[in-house]
């Protein structure tokens, strides 16, 4: 099994486009101003592909998947 991975948002790059929350509502919701709020903890195995998609489709490349211990 691969090491647990977590989503990491670059808050400076993030523009609040909201695509990630549409692609991955299981783990990402938007705050009152349209910026993503991540569910805590690592990405469950069955959502990894969707998470990967959210990472790749972010228009400003503000999300990444990282080994869980790297996230803060």
């Amino acid at each position, binding site marked *: 099994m691969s090491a647990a991975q977590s989503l990491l948002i670059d808050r400076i790059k993030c523009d609040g486009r909201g695509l990630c929350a549409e692609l991955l509502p299981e783990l990402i919701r938007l*705050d009152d*101003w349209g910026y993503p*709020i991540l569910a805590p903890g690592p990405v469950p195995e069955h959502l990894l592909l969707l998470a990967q998609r959210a990472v790749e489709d972010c228009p400003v490349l503000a999300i990444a998947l990282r080994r869980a211990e790297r996230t803060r």
Partner: protein
Amino acid sequence: MRLLDSPDHLGELPRVGPKFIEALESSGLAGRGGAGFPAGVKWRAVAQRSRGDAVILVNGAEGEPRSKKDRVLMGARPHLILDGAFIAARVLRARRIVLYIGERHTAARDSMLRALGERPEPERGLVSIAAAPARYVAGAEAAAVHMVNEGLATPTNTPPYPFERGVDGAPTLVQNVETLAHAALLARTGSIPRTMLLTLAGATARPGVVEVDEGTTIGEAIQRAGGAAETPRAVLLGGYFGSWVEPERAWRLQLDHRSLRDQGLGLGCGVIGLLPARGCPVCETAGIMRYLAGESSAQCGPCFFGLRALADACTRIAEGGANPDDLRRLHRWSAMVRGRGACKHPDGAVIFLSSALTVFAREFTAHAPHRARRIA
């Protein structure tokens, strides 16, 4: 020995090496810039990475509006601060020292430059100077590094932390001027003065900077500075990133970083502000929230929009034009904003606000516009 009573020019620098870091660690010296981070841990982190290329960033930005202690120290004991910087440069094998001083603190900068001019040439050549913009976040470590590197005093994402990749991409020690002065006395005398610099502000008889022994209570510190001008409604401990505390509780608090932290409080950069009894806590809080919202570096959405929304709602409550949900929103948005910036600016603002909502719960709930109150 105290910082402000110590002789300023103490002669040749003591011969110190890597072992000094152990002394710094066991001294327990906590950073005096606001975060209270252990100095020894910082020095060790830079020492482990330095290959003779480290940089010492002497932080005299002092962007906290009420704080004056760094300026007073730079004015009064510039050599002690330079000693600390040169000792750090030796111990950490640095090739560059940057004096980062608030652009409006001209007397402090002149004092530091004058002292630098009195230093012998080989060490003086290490030093350059950078002006810190008069912005709240400019003194944050990553913002200071960003300013020196790129001319922008905005925070950056961490990691990498300055001790990993800072000025010129090299391991960088960012250390407040008061902390460096303490380190200098440790190297000179083998012990640090167990004192701290405070800025007393607001309803005190003699606002200004005092040096007190660690463990002094706030009541004693204020008494020694002439006492309170009147019975305060509340005490703002630690400046704008600090907390409101009820005066009865505040008076008994011991000024000691560790014991305050255990109680969920902090001394920040040492500002103690007394809100006069006739002052309006809600208006004061709203004013500080507007200031902090305006000081967002506007890089991260939750901070830029969130702090603005919080400040607006606070202001509506203060001015008596609140929407019925505003108080509830303050709680909800505070939780929403926290931990969602690249730096700690939004966190500091909502910690401050949450102390206001606790200590001034009655005032926030029952706040009526002052005009209406006066008529009634």
